[in-house]
């Protein structure tokens, strides 16, 4: 059985946010909606180190949906609109969601996003906010242009965003179902991501997870996330390297 997971190597992450942007482009996210975030741990502004010179730290933490094996969002959904597929990907059925937002309350990672307004209106507002009168190419809409349904016919990706439903990172379901990797994995300039089958012992991801120390976010809440992080190796003074076991914030 395939069980998809992702490894993000924080040693390789340069905090460029390409993953977040490529996700936004490929999944035709409306302005203001982000399925993927990258922030500097402990800092109010991205790319600003924390701590006191010379004892500084600047760790970037990219956060997609964790595709938990024990997802609280699936447990709380009153209508079963969000569910964990056989391959472990947590998806939202755009045609069944009633927009109660209970899942957003339940998700401990804050990855779920709601369509508060019409996508077209949001795009218009986005252009206006960015100082444009119209659009730069009239009528052009970014994103994978086709609807995507699972084998049992549930609509899990559509470029036309229905207003009033919840959406989130799908591990690019429209691509992985065609044997392609998610956009953030392909687009990462530092090659920090590995995507693959956790149940296949010969897959790249399984090999990496066997060899390296990793963490998962909020492991103590028992969500069993399938996004794994390889922690950055820190230099502690000249020539001394410390292998940390948890994400630290220097203040």
């Amino acid at each position, binding site marked *: 059985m395939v069980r998809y997971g992702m490894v993000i190597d924080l040693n390789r992450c340069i905090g460029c946010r390409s993953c977040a942007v490529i996700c936004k482009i490929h999944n035709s996210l409306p302005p203001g909606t982000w399925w993927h975030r990258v922030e500097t741990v402990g800092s109010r502004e991205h790319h600003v180190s924390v701590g006191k010179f010379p004892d500084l730290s600047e760790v970037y933490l990219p956060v997609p949906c964790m595709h938990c094996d024990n997802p609280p969002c699936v447990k709380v959904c009153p209508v079963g609109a969000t569910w964990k597929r056989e391959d472990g990907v947590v998806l939202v059925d755009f045609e069944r969601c009633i927009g109660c937002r209970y899942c957003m309350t339940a998700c401990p990672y804050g990855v779920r996003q709601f369509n*508060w*307004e019409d996508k077209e209106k949001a795009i218009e507002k986005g252009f206006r906010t960015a100082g444009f009168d119209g659009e730069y190419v009239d009528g052009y809409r970014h994103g994978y242009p086709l609807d995507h349904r699972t084998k049992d016919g549930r609509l899990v990706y559509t470029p036309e965003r229905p207003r009033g439903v919840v959406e989130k990172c799908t591990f690019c379901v429209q691509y992985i179902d065609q044997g392609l990797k998610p956009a953030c994995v392909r687009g990462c300039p530092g090659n920090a991501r590995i995507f693959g089958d956790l149940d296949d012992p010969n897959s790249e991801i399984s090999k990496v997870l066997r060899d390296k120390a990793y963490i998962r976010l909020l492991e103590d809440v028992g969500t069993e996330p399938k996004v794994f992080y390889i922690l950055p190796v820190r230099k502690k003074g000249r020539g001394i390297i410390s292998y940390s076991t948890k994400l630290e914030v220097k203040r």
Partner: protein
Amino acid sequence: MKFRAAIAILLIIAAIGIAAWIYQLQEGLIVTNMRNPFSWGLYIATWAFFVGTAAGGLVVSSAIYIFGAKEFKPIAPVASTTAFIFAVGAMVMVLPDLGRVDRIFNIFLYPNFSSLMPWDLIVLSTYAFLSAIYTYVLLMPRIAEKGVLGFLKRGSPNVDELREKSERYAKILAPIALPFAILIHTVTAWVLATQLSRPWWYGGLLAPTFIAAAIATGPAVVILASLFVYGYNERLKNAYRLLAKISASSSAALLFMYYNDFLVRYWWGEGLEYEALAIVFKDYLHIHFLEIVFILLAAAILAKAATKMGLVVGSVFVNVGVYFHRFLLMPPAYNVFAFQIEGWSYPIALGEVRGSLLNPQPVFVDYWNYIPSPVEIAITAGISAILLLVLVALLKVLPVSEDT
């Protein structure tokens, strides 16, 4: 005259509320001030409040048939009518919160019973149904005599036989309704209290405080409704006094449980539970002050209320105080969130682009200062006004009082 003016004002508020709801349906929930990091607001707080005010029917009927408080018998139909109205009102209150209210039937087509939301729907609708039946059973003899709006009147009813029947059915129904009456508050609390990602809610104490809040506000609502129907008189003096005492002691229990929770959170001085409490005192001290002052004043007034004025003021105060209490369910829950790394909260995208080119505003925030938008307030007030209008209409139409 005064009555007509009040009805006119309620009608205006209801009309504004309906207009606001239509506007919200056209524009989407963007017209509220809820955003991705703060995804439930005034609607859900009001839902929890209405579930509480629906408790009146239970308190009265169980007091009569389980604790033998015979003085409540004359006001029992009024009490169960309020229970019916507010249980329905609670369910209605969730509707404007839904992004796709047109798909509400999915909850019957594809219910997911590991979520507590369908369970809440089941207990609330059962309680509303039982309250309606209970009201009818209590009024059976009088309906046969006088009819409702000219209907249901029977030619020459055997009133004595009907009275006996009504008494017998009521005795059977009261203990059936009791578990549901407790369940509506507990299941509603569980919807929130089961969420480990929200340290302000998570834990076993939320359900008991919901019950305390319900038994504080429910009888207060029954007092107000009964004063409206029967006025203040010798015959009902003791019923009012007892209801006021129940409300006052439950208010005290609510405050006790609330501050007990505060102390437990405060003592450790660290962690998410503490931070959620700290937000109450840092950012919402005014609302906290209001909830405490209103509930304390209400408890003090209701404990000894022996005049009509005292009953009205105390009952209104306890509802106002508990409403503030309900509102305070939301901000600490959403602004102190599980996803923290050593005190640093990971920001969440709002779902909206704000500001302008020269004055950009952040899309990613770790704190959202939620103040209900005018549309949210109008819809909430409108639904409340409609509930009150229906309640008044039912109390006028049904033969709840013996002498009219």
